[in-house]
């Protein structure tokens, strides 16, 4: 669903929660007049179960879309093995193959991206515009952060992850 230029997606978990509570409200209102008398706030609350995650997703996607050109300008291409604790806070661009994808269903995908020098976790706090799968060749823009914000090994906090053509890979990628 598009709102303006932003493609908004809600996760399957949100939909499952909405369906669960919608069924609960429907079934209980069928059997209980007390519940029927409370529908005036239950129905809007049900709607909010969908609207709020959509709104949050819109806001985060919009913010990431605004950050992308800034990161594109400032990002330094680096090989994955070169990323270390001394680079915390630096904006980087990495290219590699997606080794694994987790938590896409929560709209908080975590990728492991590997190039010929090593691999690194790439965390994103919203879902990317493209559907990124295992074995995709991708270009990642992000900043180097600690895994748990203040402690942990360096990971990439991703602002943009895009698929690259496999043909581009033979163009002298290191």
């Amino acid at each position, binding site marked *: 669903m598009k709102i303006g230029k932003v493609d908004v997606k809600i996760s399957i978990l949100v939909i499952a929660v909405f369906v669960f509570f919608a069924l609960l409200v429907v079934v209980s209102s069928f059997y209980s007049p007390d519940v029927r008398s409370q529908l005036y706030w239950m129905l809007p609350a049900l709607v909010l179960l969908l609207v709020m995650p959509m709104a949050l997703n819109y806001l985060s996607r919009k913010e990431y879309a605004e950050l992308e050109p800034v990161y594109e300008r400032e990002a*330094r*291409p*680096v*090989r994955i*093995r*070169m990323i*270390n*604790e*001394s*680079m915390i806070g*630096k904006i*980087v661009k990495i*290219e590699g193959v997606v080794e694994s994808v987790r938590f896409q269903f929560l709209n908080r995908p975590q990728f492991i991206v590997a190039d*010929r*020098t*090593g691999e690194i976790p790439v965390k994103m706090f919203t879902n990317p515009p493209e559907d990124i799968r295992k074995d995709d060749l991708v270009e990642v823009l992000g900043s180097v952060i600690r895994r*748990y914000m203040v*402690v*942990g*090994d360096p990971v990439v906090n991703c602002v943009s992850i895009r698929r690259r053509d496999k043909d581009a890979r033979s163009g*002298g*990628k*290191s």
Partner: protein
Amino acid sequence: MSGADTAVRSGSAGTILLELLVPVLSFGGTLAGIFIRGLGFQFGIQYAAIGSVLGSCILAYLAWIRQKKDIVSLTTPIYAFIFFVVPSDFLPGIVLQLLFAAGLTVLLVRLKYRFGASDEPVPDATVLSESLRTYAERVRGLSSSLPPGSAERAGEVFIRFARGDYGDASREADLAVQLLGPAGGAEPLVRAFSIVSEQAAQMEQSLHLPERYLKFGPEYSSLLANPDPVPREEEEEYHTTLYNALLLLYAAAWNRAGADRDRLLACQDFALKLFTQ
């Protein structure tokens, strides 16, 4: 990290005992509570959760001592407090405790298989690791013949490169080459500076593999951290040449540095990544 920095993965006896205690205390506390209630002693069943609380604390400790931290296991004591601080009825309390105990057991298995052996040493940021220390000792003779200031420059180049300031590292390395000049005994270091300067300048522009690049000659192989007994792919050889140059600079800086050792220790994790064997 080299194999020398990783302890044997069998786990110490104390750690194995602690790992066994997690399910034993968690399930045992609840079963003991059921048994005591069965004997006729009446007490709040939430007190039987003391075993689960202790089990969660032990699990959190086991997660803490690992090099790779598991935040889920680390936070189980918080959940134990939230779940069991409130009095509950007998049956719901028992079910909750048994489910929590099962959860702790699953987390323990996950911790063992996804987060490494408990006896892998947690890197101490105040001490040079064994592989770097061994390498620095191996090239100590090189540092004794260097002109004053060159070891400090080597450290500066390494630190700037580690920070991702490739342009600065390249310029600093160029300056070092000019200052060292034809200094006797410093040829390996001059070559290391030249390699870092060339590759850092290349990385500042792009990550493409150049057609020609500087390498260490075979006469320097005894000084290299990653000696090259078998032919490598061109790209791998290019990267390994850089890693060897950076490690040589690190070792030279370490062997001569005084006050700068804190800064070198701060970059130790990067230096350890440069070992390929």
